[in-house]
């Protein structure tokens, strides 16, 4: 059996907001091909952990290695896709077309590997087709529904063919039927395009159906391992018993 490549290593990470601890001694690895759900109650540090991994926040202790390199030395950002939490980052009146939103991701390409205009157009088309949004490429982003916007943001996150994709609560405010399509699409990206996916979610339904690994967080890492073992774990019982998770019909 070949050893799976380690894409992310989180080592003993601690983080505080104004001396209030949010993460304490968190350590785990993300391997190539993982579809990992990061679960936990509100305020458990899920979003903070993702931001620390991506270098958006500096930990007070510990180290992160992305594809073998410390975050501060990592330069291959086109290999990393990120869809932030929806509520915090969308201006519905921003005058950008769907195509322009997806094209923003080309900023992360190194100058030496800059694509030509035609190649960029083809990449945009492929990314939009991948999320079922090609027909909307000239639409203003503000004219789309919440679910459609999220698809566009995923297209932006995958347009450079990343190896790893981080999504922070991507289905917030999206209806249940659209959520199901959305998770199916993520499943295909993971299975067919071999993109490693890290999903911050409250939704236990997604855990049951699509993910193969779970990281359960409540300031400290309460569980990290396979989905099957998680369902039998004390962390699962504590989380489900506390009413911290929701389950949509998947």
């Amino acid at each position, binding site marked *: 059996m070949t050893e799976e490549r380690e894409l992310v290593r989180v080592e003993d990470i601690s983080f505080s907001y104004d001396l209030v601890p949010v993460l304490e001694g968190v350590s785990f690895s993300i391997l190539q091909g993982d579809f990992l759900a990061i679960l936990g109650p509100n305020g458990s540090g899920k979003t903070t952990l993702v*931001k620390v991994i*991506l*270098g*958006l926040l500096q930990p007070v202790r510990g180290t992160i290695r992305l594809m073998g390199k410390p975050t501060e030395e990592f*330069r291959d*950002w*086109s290999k*990393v896709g*990120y*869809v*932030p939490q929806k509520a*915090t*980052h*969308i*201006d*519905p*009146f*921003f*005058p*950008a*077309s769907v*195509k*322009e*939103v997806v*094209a*923003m*991701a*080309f*900023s*992360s390409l190194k100058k030496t590997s800059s694509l030509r205009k035609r190649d960029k157009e083809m990449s945009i088309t492929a990314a939009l087709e991948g999320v079922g949004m090609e027909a909307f490429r*000239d*639409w*203003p982003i*503000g*004219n789309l529904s919440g679910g459609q916007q999220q698809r566009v*943001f995923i297209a*932006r*996150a995958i347009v450079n063919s990343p190896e790893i994709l*981080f999504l922070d609560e991507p289905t917030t405010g999206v209806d249940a039927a659209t959520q199901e399509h959305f998770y199916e699409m993520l499943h295909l990206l993971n299975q067919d395009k071999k993109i490693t996916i890290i999903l911050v979610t409250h939704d236990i339904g997604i855990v049951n159906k699509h993910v193969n690994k779970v990281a359960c967080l409540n300031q400290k890492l309460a569980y990290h391992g396979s989905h099957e073992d998680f369902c039998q774990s004390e962390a699962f019982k504590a989380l489900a018993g506390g009413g911290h998770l929701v389950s949509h019909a998947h």
Partner: protein
Amino acid sequence: METLFGYGFLQRALLAGVFVAIACAILGLFLLLRRDAMIGHGLAHVTFGGVALGLFLNILPLAVALLVAVLASWAIMILKEKAGLHGDTAIGIFSSAGMALGILLATLAGRFNVDLLTYLFGDILAIEAIEVWLSVGLAAAVAIVILTNYHKLMYLTFDRDAAKASGIKTKRLDLLLATLTSVTVVLGMKVVGILLVTALLVIPAAAGLQRAASFKQALWISSAVAFFSVVLGLGAAFVYDLPASASIVLLSFIFFVIFFLFRRKKTA
């Protein structure tokens, strides 16, 4: 119109005005979308202090104003980040201090009130050849820097976290934008004066945002509004003997109203 713009002083005014107004419109689009529209207003007040300092020291006022405005824009950025102040508070502190410095120096010197007035209200029809080339050169440089960083600036403006996570040096771009804003405000001061320079940064860009369905469209519309406001404003000022700065600004306001009335429908 051809005869009208046959006059040398009008040609100079037109050349400088068009370049500066278009640079303002392009930059203004980013500022508006970052909800930083008032930074232009604040820096204009700081520029007043800079001009007064230049006149007081008898050094080229434009150069001193440029230096003071750039330093103030950096200080506003630092204050926002380090002191945890909202942008408008940091702008308010520096704009008041700049204005106070200007008043103080003007009173102490007691001799350059007339010069200072031309900076307050603008005097583009009296612009000199050297100032024209300085304005055209700097305005072109501002536009080129913005357009070469177009995708990065758009990404940063639209979604700061995602932009940062894609490896964009966000602080470096913030600094670049602040510096470019200072340069444009100082240039705009020659066209419409300190009191009206915010108009060049805000109104054409706001007009563009009313109709545009894409960022590219917004850039084109804003630039077109800036261009026609300067050309028609200068023409009207000359023909009807009106103040050029007020004519330019009021024309851009009329364009804004027209674009507002025919704005694009938004569902959100």
